[in-house]
């Protein structure tokens, strides 16, 4: 488990990455209900929702500085 750097809710990293399906030509598919992530400065960050990630995308430094809620 990790914390969404924006809203502070728990995000299950493993669940966000676990394969739940496969595309027509063989790519791994994941469950869209399990949060999302973003590659930022060489590291993956996990988010509760696309909304949280959009806030992070706009102002990453703000959320990386503050302690998780």
């Amino acid at each position, binding site marked *: 488990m990790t914390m969404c750097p924006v809203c502070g809710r728990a995000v299950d990293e493993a669940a966000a990455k676990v394969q739940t399906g496969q*595309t027509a*030509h063989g*790519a791994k*598919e994941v469950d869209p209900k399990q949060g*999302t992530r*973003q*590659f930022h400065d060489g590291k*993956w960050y996990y988010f509760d929702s696309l909304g949280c990630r959009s806030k992070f995308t706009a102002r990453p430094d703000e959320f990386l500085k503050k302690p998780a809620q």
Partner: protein
Amino acid sequence: MNFGFSPEQEALRKEVLAFIKENLTPGVIAEVEGEEQEVSAGEESAGRKGLARRGPHLSELYRRIGARGWLGITYPKEYGGQGGDRISQYIVEEEFARVGIRVGLVGSGAPAILAAGTEEQKRDFIPRLISGEYSFALGFTEPHAGADLANLRCRAVRDGDEYVINGQKIYTTAAHVATHIYLMARTNTEVPKHDGISIFIFPMDTAGITVRPLVTIQNNPKAPVGTTYGAARTNEVFFDNVRVPKSALLGGENKGWRVGSTGLNLDRVGASRYLISVRRDEDIVNWLKENRHEGNSLGDDPAIRDKIAEMWIEAQVCRLMTMRSMSIVERGGNFTYEGSAEKVWAPEHGTRITEAITQMLGPYGQLMNGSPRTIEKGIFGHNVLGSFQSGINHGSVQIMRDQVARRGLGLPSQRKAQGARK
């Protein structure tokens, strides 16, 4: 100067129409409807799923279309095309598009490969894109990089004879049905942002690719066949230490901005772009001719006739702009801003005709697929949902206007203009 078609071109159109009449069987129609549920117009793909997933009726239809020499008309014969002209391609594409069959290559991958690919890439990809065996997902947009695409951060780092890719893409519409991804990634962070970008093409089953579905406003109920923009789904795509051979690079390291732009620009030349927006005009004219609404024909109303005529005139401007673009490319001319102008006019006409249809049909035009009393399975209602999409994807109308201003009118770029004001 002759704005019409030659006798040979008119004969080709008649031949195509006769072929369609003979071969558009109920079995084909059923399979087209099933296919359009997954692959919609406007997507970055060959517009057709892989051959292995095509039903028997469509497989046979495409075999017959290929036997007539109507697939990949403008592509060189050595790469599986016909070495033909763009007007012939346009005529064939236009008539098949009206019945939901895509015979043109939608997407910027094939033109980019033809312009910048190695001989091996041309021989591998182009024949298979033409046949439908391969299709590409366009991996350009990122959370950080939409309209300002050069801000992209997905990284590709050289490691011996390979590149290692880490990062993500979003709104990758065809990722769940494509055989390959046509990816733009950053290969140099030490140079101006446009100069550090490269393009890679590699299979979707490469280890480390993850697809996360994003459902759209057309998902429930699903848009019916004939909806101009009906993609029920798009995707996020993640790349975790994805290793691709250096042969996956298209057009040389750090040359991706020019290669990608050239491909996108050439993709804007063709009947499919025109038809995306003006199919609505043809749908409503046909419907008005054939239907009475609450006992009256809406076409009897002079206000509606005026509006339809106004929209038809706009649609003809779309068509002429398309023909002009094709003519420039056909003659080997310097094609710079013309496709951008077309990419502004056609989508904005699409939203205007959608609004006009909505006003004409009233609440009936808002009933969706599956609703009782819906008109044309809800095409008009679903087009309301999707009509703004065409002004956003493949380069927003704002970006297109900027290109017209800079390349067409010679006005300074935003960066230069801001510098001059300081």
